[in-house]
């Protein structure tokens, strides 16, 4: 996984709450057996609407998605994270993420930055006034920034310490756990014999 320290990119306002993973990528797009090529399915139904935000040229290079509360609810499909990444997104900002989506993001290297709902609203308003404006997401200091001068926005975001550390270092989760092999083996030796096995 690539290290993530800070990212500055075009902010894309997605003025919707409860953006479930079926909206992020419908099931019919989940048939590939690779981790790439899912950008076609990103927001597939909404992209049929010419007015949908991603169809505006202003946001063609968008990489910071600013969404309403309860982003990533529903299905556990990590394809939702891959679709966002394959399309070019590095960060999603929302006031509340579904647990599984947040976990998948951390594993795959997409930053899920949780901010106060008021910050989402301010970013949306700022993007209305500055279409194509850039937002900076600094993982080191856990801050989001946009604009300069009087209407500049700077606020903190939440991300758990462990995920932040792994993203900053670009660490492979499995490699870390395999380092605890002795603990796992000791646990396995202590399991009751009546626990079920499949083979």
């Amino acid at each position, binding site marked *: 996984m690539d290290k993530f320290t800070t990212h500055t990119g075009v902010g894309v306002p997605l*003025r919707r709450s409860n953006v479930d993973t079926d*909206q992020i990528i419908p*099931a019919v797009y989940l048939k590939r057996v690779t981790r790439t090529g899912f950008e076609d399915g990103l927001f597939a139904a909404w992209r049929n609407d010419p007015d949908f935000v991603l169809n505006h040229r202003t946001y063609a290079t968008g990489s910071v998605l600013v969404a309403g509360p309860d982003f990533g*609810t*529903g299905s556990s*499909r990590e394809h939702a994270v891959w679709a966002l990444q394959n399309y070019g997104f590095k960060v999603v900002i929302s006031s509340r993420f579904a647990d599984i989506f947040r976990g998948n993001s951390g594993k795959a290297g997409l930053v899920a930055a949780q901010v106060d709902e008021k910050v989402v609203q301010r970013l949306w308003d700022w993007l209305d006034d500055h279409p194509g404006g850039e937002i900076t997401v600094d993982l080191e200091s856990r801050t989001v920034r946009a604009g300069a001068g009087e209407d500049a926005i700077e606020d903190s975001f939440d991300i758990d310490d462990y995920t932040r550390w792994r993203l900053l270092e670009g660490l492979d989760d499995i490699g870390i756990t395999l380092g605890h092999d002795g603990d796992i083996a000791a646990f396995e030796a202590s399991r009751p*014999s009546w626990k079920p*096995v499949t*083979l």
Partner: protein
Amino acid sequence: MGKTLSEKVWDEHVVRSAAGEPDLLFIDLHLLHEVTSPQAFDGLRLANRVVRRPDLILATEDHNVPTLDWDKPIADPVSRTQVETLRKNAADFGVRLHPLGDIEQGIVHVVGPQLGLTQPGMTIVCGDSHTSTHGAFGAIAFGIGTSEVEHVLATQTLTQARPKTMAVTVNGSLPEGVTAKDLVLTLIAHTGTGGGQGYIVEYRGQAIEELSMEGRMTVCNMSIEWGAKAGMIAPDQTTFDYIEGKPEAPKGADWDAAVAHWKTLRTDEDAVFDDEIVLDASTMTPFVTWGTNPGQGAPLGASVPSPDDFDEPNDKVATEKALQYMGLEAGTPLREVKVDTVFVGSCTNGRIEDLRLAASILEGRHVAADTRLLVVPGSVRVRLQAEAEGLDKVFIAAGAEWRGAGCSMCLGMNPDQLAPGERSASTSNRNFEGRQGKGGRTHLVSVPVAAATAVRGTLSSPADLAPLGG
């Protein structure tokens, strides 16, 4: 201070705990299916890693399989590749697989319990959010993404931050004809889709204790629809009776040792939950959704709400968008909403009790003109049991389509899909935009409501049906 059920099960699975880090949890059972596993196996190959415990894994094919012609090669080449990839991965890594055509094939969350692999006090994961179903047995069970699937394959563990605990206490008894599905839809309308976020929830109280194992699975299945990490129900005699004698259940002295342990898996009297919701089952009625998330529901006797009925700006906008997508007018009585397709099936309501209940309502009746009814058993075993009881004949006589086992119309991936604008009453778990097919409109319902709706062609409960003659 005592511990809650979830804390007990969690603590029994901590491999490693360190300050400032999530716990490393041992996973007792890892369920796999064709959609969320191929990239995980690829990751293992790339890193030259092996599957640590193939003996704690079970794979089946469910999401992307047809429910017609299941004995023939899958027609769609992309779907066929996905299914064949699972078969190759299972063979290469020595994983037990029940493929299409096998007598144990079916929806992964129906197969685990019916084999007796789902037992109290376990940790169970799967690359599928409805893994929460298995919590009905007093297991900690939750859905994971593909990176985590890979992590479990390689290490048989997961790094997990300890969730908060919540009790959902449902007092009283459900009235006649009101089901576990109505209970959980009522709860989700109360909490919204994010109300359970960050919590492992324990469902308890008289109404929960009175549910069968299958009803309990329906409730726990939908825990994810209100955002909970997992849902659990303390194991009791109902649980033990269900498991005993199942193919993979403990036998002899192992059974006695297991039950002795399972009986300790109850929340202590002096344990404290971080939060609690209390509901009264006796006031519940058949409940259906009108919108595009599972929290947008109302009693069947109510009318479609208006955006003005909500105070929160986000709720107003969400309601407006939902009504537009669903093609509904505010104020329309839900009973007048005409339905094109009725789907009975899924990991929520595709078990034998569900099919028995549907058949009991459909017997001697016929599906309305211009309405189609799909009845899809959750597993091959459920299909064979239903056929042994003659339920298939009841469905076919009523004009329904009787299908093979799989996820079917729950998710708009395999051939069973709604057409754009088509409206369904569905016993499944999600009414998201396009969930059952692009442009499809879904109303989530219980099995009795589904059956009655199929007969009348509009959202209905069995109470709306004319009595049978004779």
